[in-house]
């Protein structure tokens, strides 16, 4: 049988992102003064997972043919919240983590409720809620500050068995605990179906609304996990507006690099993770080649353009020009 070919076709976007990332990472480490060491990998992983979590969050929403411009702000809000709550005894810390994650879930649920039941366009709805989330974050931390349980933070940003970066292990666990069950559940399939053809999904009796709601809500949760990790790395809470916006925009870039279609219905969070890691590596590459950091935005833009162009070739095969606009 040729099952593997269908599997390959389905995973093409993910594999392409993985390939781009591996090539870039090899170039990076082989030109790094220290080479491919546990330390270099750990630093890269810690920088990469932040965007990876936010990109996973974005993926869930993009699959439903929506977009979430509030992910970066949920990421900031939960960072600020964590700098208040994730402190003290192990018991208090645990409760703090749970509270932070619950707030992320709630933010996502609010987005979902507004988009699905309020029937607002995702772009507008999430710009508005994003501003609200940022506003709350700013009230929590008007100035950078706060602290975090350092034992937990160091464990999460350190290495397991002195080799594997703990942040990657957590990322892997989150994929197994959240993404895999979601993508294989009825709700996940409903999210894909709604993104691909909402009418067909409706006609087939698919629970579209619940699927989309689950996608938005889990996106909030994933952004909150990213926010927690930001706190673990920085030991502080900081409502930095520019950083929140950058994460939102980079998450969209990572999603596209990872082969997730902005038209919905297609792609995987795993692809988005590799997209995020690859996107992060661009900056590191410039560093090892001694480029001025001023070049970074320009290079990121060019790489993104190239990656997106790869996906546009299908338009050359269109026979009815009206399909260009579908």
């Amino acid at each position, binding site marked *: 049988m*040729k099952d593997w070919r*269908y*599997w390959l076709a389905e995973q093409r976007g993910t594999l392409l992102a993985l390939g781009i990332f591996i090539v870039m990472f090899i170039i990076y480490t082989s030109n790094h003064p220290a080479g491919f060491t546990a330390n270099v990998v750990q630093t890269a992983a810690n920088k990469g997972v932040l965007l990876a979590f936010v990109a996973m969050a974005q993926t869930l929403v993009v699959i439903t043919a929506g977009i979430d411009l509030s992910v970066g702000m949920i990421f900031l809000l939960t960072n600020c919240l964590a700098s208040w709550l994730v402190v003290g005894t192990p018991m208090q810390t645990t409760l703090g983590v749970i509270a932070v994650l619950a707030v992320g879930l709630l933010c996502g649920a609010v987005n979902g409720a507004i988009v699905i039941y309020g029937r607002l366009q995702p772009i507008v709805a999430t710009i508005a809620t994003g501003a609200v989330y940022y506003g709350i974050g700013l009230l929590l931390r008007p100035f950078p500050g706060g602290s975090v349980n350092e034992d937990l933070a160091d464990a999460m940003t350190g290495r397991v068995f002195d080799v594997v970066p703990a942040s990657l292990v957590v990322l892997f666990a989150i994929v197994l605990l959240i993404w895999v069950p979601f993508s294989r559940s009825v709700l996940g*399939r409903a999210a894909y179906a709604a993104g691909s053809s909402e009418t*067909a*999904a409706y006609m*087939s009796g698919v629970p579209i609304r619940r699927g989309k709601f689950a996608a938005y809500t889990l996106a909030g949760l994933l952004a909150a996990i990213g926010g927690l990790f930001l706190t673990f790395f920085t030991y502080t809470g900081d409502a930095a507006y520019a950083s929140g916006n950058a994460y939102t925009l980079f998450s969209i870039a990572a999603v596209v690099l990872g082969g997730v279609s902005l038209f919905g219905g297609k792609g995987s969070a795993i692809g988005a993770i590799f997209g995020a890691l690859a996107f992060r590596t661009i900056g590191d590459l410039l560093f090892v080649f001694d480029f001025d950091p001023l070049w970074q935005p320009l290079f990121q833009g060019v790489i993104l353009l190239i990656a997106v162009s790869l996906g546009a070739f299908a338009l050359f095969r269109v026979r*009815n*020009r*009206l399909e260009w606009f579908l």
Partner: protein
Amino acid sequence: MDSAVPLFRMEGISKRYGGVRALEKAELVVTSGSIHAILGENGAGKSTLIKVMAGVVAPDEGRMTLDGREVTFLSPAAANQAGIVCIFQELSLVPDLSVADNIVISDPPKRFGMIDRGAQRRIAEEALARAGAADIHPLALVKDLPLSRRQMVEIAKALARKPRILILDEATSALTAADVSKIFGVLKRLRAEGLALLYISHRMNEIAELADQCTVFRNGRNVASYKAGSKSDNEVVELMIGREYSHIFPPKPAAVPATAAPRLEARKLSWTDRLHNISLTVRAGEVVGLGGLDGQGQRELLLAFFGVLRGLSGEVLIDGKPVAISSPAAAREDRIGMALIPEDRKTEGLMLPMTVRENLSFAALDRLSKGGIIDRAAEQRLIDDMVGLLAIKTAGLDIPVGALSGGNQQKVVIAKWLMRQPRIILLNDPTRGIDVGTKQELYQLMRKLADAGAAILFYSTDYDELIGCCDRVLVLYDGAVKRELVGAEITERALIASALNIHGEESPVGLGASA
């Protein structure tokens, strides 16, 4: 069949859309173990009837009983639950999911809360085999399959839901002959298993081969039910004819001499599997109709002329000279002078949030501007002319066009193109969903434009319009011209008969006298 207890019954079902009544006290009785054909021309209410049965549309009044108990379906899912499964004309497959995903989409097999992919694969393979389509790979993405294969998947998907009543709405329209015979085998087996099947098709030979019972719909009512084979094709056509209302059509002038040079000509036009060797001519001053059932390639033909389709084969000639029209912008250039009044004015004809003025001048901006600057005075003059000519009723030129009534919106679309003084006008079912008064005005206008020297190609799903407005009608079937009707030959009987391809043996005529 007569001993069977009615499985499903619809009584006094009515449904209105705005002022249009789609169903009026319709009745239907469905029995187990039989194939029931539903017949009727375009707009007779068949589609609405099925949508009511399948839970897509809620009826305004009437009741439905299943096994003698009254039922109401609030959603397609509820109807599925009750065992009523419909294969719709517009496919209900999700393009980015695999065949197997689609087949089990309504109720996927689960294990530990997740979809059991192994079980899903088995169900899909079994359903595909039952539908006689075991050649389709369950992991293939639906969007990568050709239309005929998708229809087979659609059928497999319906079978996987274990229906008691299976509705097939034009489910064979895109199938190859080989597939059709396979499907017929499947349907006959399902009948033997005790299913009730409702079969909607315009192909009389299919109905003759399959159906046990037939019901004819007209104007939203069931007008006759009879045992299949007890009536001749002609009697069936007679039952389908007969609309109540009639329009006032402008008188037709003497026929344009057949020797006149054609303004627009197509020679052996073909495009993918939708258009096959279409040849036709339209002369200046002529209104030529495109008839046939909905979706036989009429829309594609108009789009082909208008430069929207890529990969056309064959020739298009304007005033006898071959031209290559590569885009709508090229089609409207003066040397071609073509305008297309689209079918869906909301997406292809108007920019609803923009004002009447802006919408009106869009197509003619290049003529109204010098060096990129719009000549406001010239624009205003032309707009005033058009609003006057078409009697567009609007509270002002600067209100959003979306605020106008459907009829006036359609007038704006037409006026927009008339501002260019087109020499060739293509109309794609322009009177759909507009009121009778506006329709009449449009008929008058069409004739006036033709008299002024335009060549008009007019597609309509309303047979009365074709009869009342056209000098000639070309009837399309399956992407090819099946018959040309000229002058007094254009009758409802002839239109329906050739639309159903009852006179399939006749050779296609399209070139008219210039052939």
